[in-house]
């Protein structure tokens, strides 16, 4: 990396850490440390909500998916605006008026302490692991693409984040999120600008998008009703609705964001920001992938974007086979570039009408390039034994480091850091809140001073930061990144949502029904995930329906346990 790019990255890190540390002045009591004394404006909370959800996995994984498959991933977010409205009407005013620190406190008031304990433990377990994955994912990729030491990269992301989160609490998390969101948007905008600027002179933007559309990459909405397909309109609208309801309504890392707002209405408005802007933003991110696909139609890409595996294959006994593959790839690339140029020319001369023959020729040429890349990926899996290897996660960082102008490379690397750090900070802060409020203050050390709990909260934040870094160092076999975290979350999320539906919507639900319903729901999701090919977004629906059904059944049969009501 050029020294100017290093300067941008270092300046970003110094700025964020300094900004986070100086927020410690406003956090001299537990409520200030965890909830900013419920004083933050809606726009800051709204940006924090968006920054928390947009991790480096989204930025790197989604652009890679856009490159390989196109725009279909945008469907994941179709249920989000509806989820935000439902939450604003139901849980947000409730949580705010109940003056809770964690979402799980409500479960004890409504049911019993073991349901609260189980829900909070599930959160701690799943978020601690996902926090490690969120650090590991960009660190693995950046270390390979930039040749950095992996452990140092993990520590480079983790240590500054732990430092300012530990010292500054939620104030630091929120205000650094605001700045990090600005860095991310600037990075995304700069990438789109460079990609558009680097289109060949003889291909307009419209023609480039038509060319991408020829391969199916502009197929953003898929209206087929196939429960085994990961992203369809229906899985995004219905499964995504359940996922978002659970994520924003039952996951402490998000609930805590809007609990810091000045009032109920400011909390709601913060969620409305995501409701209005999330889909357009998530449309732009895979569009970067599609534009990279167009870019690499006219500029030869490497056979493999992961240069470490590329080097391993070259050094293996099958290097000769790989060299032949490279020659085939160069010939296939030349043929595809010519076919793309011919397709653009045919569209121009035909007045925009679809030139079927040119399209067929281009699709065939693209198929040959994809087939060679597929064979190369299979070769890597055989040579390295890395069965989950997916090259798409390396496309965006490779493009940035090799094709972006000096200075902007630093900005994009800073944006990847920002995306990772904003998510990690919110999660560490919420992990600490759940540990101290749901366990330490309730079960271990009751009645201690506020200063004691504040000191413990800071130590616990540091502890979870250490756990996340250790998990990150040992996290391997990541697979397609965006799916790892979402699949993992879907295992618990639907069931957690089911318990909150029972709590808030079913007066006859009993504590025994809620507890065993939650356990049964997770068991059913595990069975569905193990023995069916149902897409993971539907697991959220299965979990919620299972918990509500079984919970209600047990509640109705449970004559000995009287309902507490709402």
């Amino acid at each position, binding site marked *: 990396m050029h020294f100017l790019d290093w300067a941008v990255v270092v300046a970003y890190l110094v700025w964020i850490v300094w900004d986070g540390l100086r927020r410690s002045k406003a956090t001299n009591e537990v409520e200030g440390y965890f909830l900013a004394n419920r004083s933050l404006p809606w726009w800051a909370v709204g940006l924090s909500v968006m920054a928390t959800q947009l991790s480096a996995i989204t930025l790197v994984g989604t652009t890679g998916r856009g490159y390989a498959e196109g725009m279909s991933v945008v469907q994941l977010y179709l249920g989000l605006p509806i989820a935000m409205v439902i939450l604003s009407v139901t849980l947000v005013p409730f949580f705010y008026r*109940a003056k809770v620190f964690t979402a799980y406190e409500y479960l004890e*008031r409504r049911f019993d302490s073991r349901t609260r304990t189980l829900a909070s433990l599930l959160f701690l377990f799943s978020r601690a692991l996902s926090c490690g994955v969120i650090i590991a994912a960009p660190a693995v990729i950046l270390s390979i693409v930039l040749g950095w030491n992996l452990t140092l990269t993990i520590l480079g992301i983790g240590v500054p984040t732990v430092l300012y989160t530990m010292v500054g609490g939620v104030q630091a998390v929120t205000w650094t999120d605001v700045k990090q969101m600005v860095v991310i948007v600037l990075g995304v905008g700069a990438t789109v600008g460079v990609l558009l600027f680097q289109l060949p002179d003889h291909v307009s933007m419209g023609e480039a998008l038509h060319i991408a559309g020829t391969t199916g990459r*502009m197929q953003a909405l898929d209206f087929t009703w196939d429960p085994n397909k990961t992203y369809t309109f229906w899985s995004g609208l219905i499964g995504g609705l359940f996922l978002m309801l659970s994520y924003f309504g039952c996951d402490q890392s998000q609930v805590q964001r809007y609990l810091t707002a000045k009032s109920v209405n400011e909390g*709601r408005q913060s969620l409305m920001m995501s409701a*209005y802007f999330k*889909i357009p933003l998530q449309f732009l991110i895979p569009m970067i992938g599609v534009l990279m696909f167009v870019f690499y139609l006219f500029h030869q890409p490497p056979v493999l974007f992961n240069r470490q595996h590329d080097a391993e294959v070259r050094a293996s006994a099958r290097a000769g086979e790989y060299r032949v593959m490279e020659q085939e790839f160069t010939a296939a690339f030349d043929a595809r570039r010519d076919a793309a140029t011919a397709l653009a020319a045919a569209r121009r001369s035909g007045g925009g009408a*679809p030139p079927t023959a040119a*399209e067929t020729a281009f699709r065939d040429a693209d198929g040959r390039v994809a087939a060679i890349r597929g064979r190369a990926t299979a070769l890597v899996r055989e040579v390295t034994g890395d069965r989950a290897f997916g090259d798409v996660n390396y496309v965006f960082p490779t493009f940035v480091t090799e094709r972006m102008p000096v200075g902007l490379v630093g900005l994009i690397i800073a944006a990847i850091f920002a995306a990772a750090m904003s998510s990690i900070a919110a999660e560490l802060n919420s992990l600490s809140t759940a540990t101290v409020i749901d366990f330490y203050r309730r079960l271990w050390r009751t009645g201690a001073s506020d200063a004691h709990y504040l000191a413990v909260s800071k130590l616990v934040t540091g502890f979870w930061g250490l756990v996340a870094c250790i998990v990150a160092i040992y996290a391997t076999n990541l697979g397609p990144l965006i799916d790892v975290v979402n699949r993992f979350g879907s295992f618990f999320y639907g069931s957690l949502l089911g318990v909150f539906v029972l709590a808030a919507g079913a007066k006859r639900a009993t504590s025994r029904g809620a507890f065993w319903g939650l356990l049964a729901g997770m068991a059913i999701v595990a069975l569905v995930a193990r023995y069916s090919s149902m897409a993971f977004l539907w697991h959220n629906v299965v979990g919620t329906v299972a918990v509500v059904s079984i919970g209600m059944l047990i509640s109705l049969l449970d004559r000995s346990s009287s309902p507490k*009501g*709402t």
Partner: protein
Amino acid sequence: MSDTPLVAGGTGDERSNTRLYAGVIVVEVIVVTAIWLFQRYFGT
């Protein structure tokens, strides 16, 4: 029994958000339609 009942739609001035919520749904319909038109235009 919780001392903080859940009231759908909120209470008092909280109901003034109805327009905001309706706006979200309208904007989503517009955005999804725009994406569908985008896909129809460039998808061939």
